[in-house]
């Protein structure tokens, strides 16, 4: 019993001591606080803030439940020591800041943001166990979570997944509306687990896609609206292998991919204790780290309220602009994209063979076969906020983006393994180390951003800022002046010769602003 209590212990000291965050500048509550302040102001006054609760959950899981002595999400609070080992000069870093295991952190952030997380890795590495823990954190019992877990198999039908019409109603009903559906319980849960999703038949995957993508299930014209939930899926092979090919739209709905890291045998003693004491982590989750539905709702709002400074956002913009441009993709400027070439069925090696003139080693866009979707970018920003929130911050840092980006873009930005970048000395490992490669690409993009001095010298950003102030009161003369400035800037760039991804996006942005001013000028003339 003493050992059981030991396993249930939750850290009482602050898990990440921080100065108190700066209060929001505007809050309607400031208008009514005082004698009329309502119950919501005093309820839970002794409960820890939700970010602290999330950290307590993290440390309980990593110290007690899942043996993951990895710190692959590295933060540095000052200089860090690093060592070079082996013939291949492998680098081991000892981070100077509080660092984390992705295998525990990413599922927790997924739980907090109610997003979708895919666990990949070989069998027996704790994928399903991790997903089970997330269900328990959501307030469900072990048996509830186990019974609601959907296990993919080749004979899984839509009825197995979603539910059945009541047989008596099927026989007796004169209209579709009279048929009642017995919906599966898991559809109403706020933590949904799909085990081995790549073993679900294609037809059933389509039904799953509707639930994952649009949050509703449909049978015989009857619709079940699902609540916002966190999704945890597992697969043995993230390449879409298993028994069935995973449909692309379903793969795209997944927000983050986290790999089960190898078990370190030095921690075998912990496993032995579990065997000897018959301890199961999912049965020992302390009540203090279980979240109610209301806490989950509030935590989501607090995460969304974390601010992203302009200097961080612009670096993400610059990074994202590297990849979509493909000069040979089309004749019309807007269609010069990799997506245009892909939709036309063009073979990738034909595209790259004809692409001459640019520095294919320096150009980051040459390393990938596609660009970034809106969905991927929104997920990136949401998770960046979530990890900042987890660390007790109310402002996203570039380090947060750097740590979370590889897991969000893990299968959203496939590499071109034949790109010259991977042939360069020291870069071969990036062909297989997707996480390391994505961080490297972000670092290179940020270095280029700094080299171009974009924080100070960004004419497009200045013009956008000007446009954001609105067009009210802008005179015809001023509008014409702005149009001329846009045209001059484009003419200057036209002298440069080579087109790269960030330049392409900036040119389209300038065209957008030019069109806005042109339309406004036409309207002014009618006044």
């Amino acid at each position, binding site marked *: 019993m003493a050992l059981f209590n030991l396993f249930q212990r939750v850290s009482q000291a602050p898990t990440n001591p921080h100065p108190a965050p700066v209060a929001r500048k*505007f809050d*309607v*509550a400031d*208008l*009514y606080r005082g004698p*009329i302040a309502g119950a919501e102001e005093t309820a839970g006054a002794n409960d820890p803030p939700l970010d602290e609760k999330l950290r307590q959950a993290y440390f309980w899981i990593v110290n007690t439940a899942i043996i993951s002595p990895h710190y692959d999400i590295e933060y540095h609070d000052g200089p860090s020591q690093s060592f070079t080992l082996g013939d291949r000069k492998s680098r081991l870093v000892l981070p100077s800041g509080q660092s984390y295991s992705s295998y525990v952190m990413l599922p927790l952030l997924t739980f907090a943001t109610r997003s979708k997380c895919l666990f990949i890795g070989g069998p027996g590495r704790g994928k399903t166990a991790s997903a089970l823990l997330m269900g328990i954190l959501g307030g469900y019992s072990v048996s509830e979570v186990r019974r609601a877990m959907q296990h993919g198999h080749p004979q899984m039908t839509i009825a197995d997944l979603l539910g059945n019409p009541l047989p008596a109603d099927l026989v007796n009903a004169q209209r579709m509306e009279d048929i009642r559906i017995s919906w599966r319980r898991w559809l109403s849960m706020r933590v949904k687990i799909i085990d081995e999703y790549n073993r679900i038949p294609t037809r059933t995957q389509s039904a799953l896609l509707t639930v994952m993508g649009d949050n509703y299930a449909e049978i015989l014209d009857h619709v079940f609206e699902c609540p916002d939930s966190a999704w945890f899926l597992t697969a043995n092979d993230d390449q879409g292998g298993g028994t069935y090919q995973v449909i692309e739209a379903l793969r795209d709905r997944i927000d983050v991919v986290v790999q089960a890291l190898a078990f370190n045998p030095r921690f075998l003693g912990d496993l032995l204790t579990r065997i000897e004491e018959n301890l199961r982590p999912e049965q020992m989750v302390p009540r203090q780290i279980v979240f109610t539905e209301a806490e989950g709702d509030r935590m989501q709002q607090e995460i969304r*309220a974390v601010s992203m400074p302009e200097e961080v956002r612009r670096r993400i913009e610059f990074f994202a602009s590297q990849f979509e441009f493909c000069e040979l993709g089309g004749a019309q400027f807007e269609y010069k994209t990799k997506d245009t070439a892909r939709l036309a069925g063009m073979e990738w090696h034909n595209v790259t063979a004809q692409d001459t003139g640019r520095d294919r080693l320096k150009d980051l866009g040459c390393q990938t076969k596609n660009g970034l979707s809106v969905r991927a970018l929104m997920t990136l920003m949401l998770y960046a906020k979530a990890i900042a929130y987890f660390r007790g911050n109310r402002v996203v840092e570039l380090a947060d983006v750097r740590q979370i980006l590889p897991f969000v873009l893990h299968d959203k930005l496939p590499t071109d393994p034949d790109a010259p970048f991977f042939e360069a000395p020291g870069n071969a490992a990036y062909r297989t180390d997707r996480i390391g490669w994505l961080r490297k690409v972000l670092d290179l993009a940020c270095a280029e951003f700094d080299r171009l001095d974009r924080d100070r010298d960004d004419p497009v950003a200045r013009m956008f800022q000007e446009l954001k*102030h609105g067009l009210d009161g802008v005179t015809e003369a001023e509008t014409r002046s702005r149009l001329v400035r846009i045209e001059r800037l484009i003419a200057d760039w036209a002298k440069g010769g080579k087109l790269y991804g960030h330049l392409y996006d900036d040119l389209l942005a300038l065209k957008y602003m030019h069109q806005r001013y042109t339309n406004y000028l036409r309207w002014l003339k009618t006044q």
Partner: protein
Amino acid sequence: MISETLATVLRSGRADFNARYEVARQRYPVLEAAAFGRFLEESVDPLAQGTARLARDLVPDVVAAAYDVGLDLVGQRLLGHEERERQIEATWRS
């Protein structure tokens, strides 16, 4: 301090009202918290109380609509101390 009528509406929709303010702040970089707070106290509160006397169930909708209009007015600096702005305030109150 505002009346209990307005306080009830703001309290029940606090997160939503704060979120609307943040969205407006992105659109109107010059939106001032103090000016908007004054607008709520001096213009929306009397409106809420007047609505409550006539049709209490309409108070939340009226407050929500006035809140959004106020964000646009204050965000564009149409309410404040200049003569034109005083006229708008007077029109609002009447």
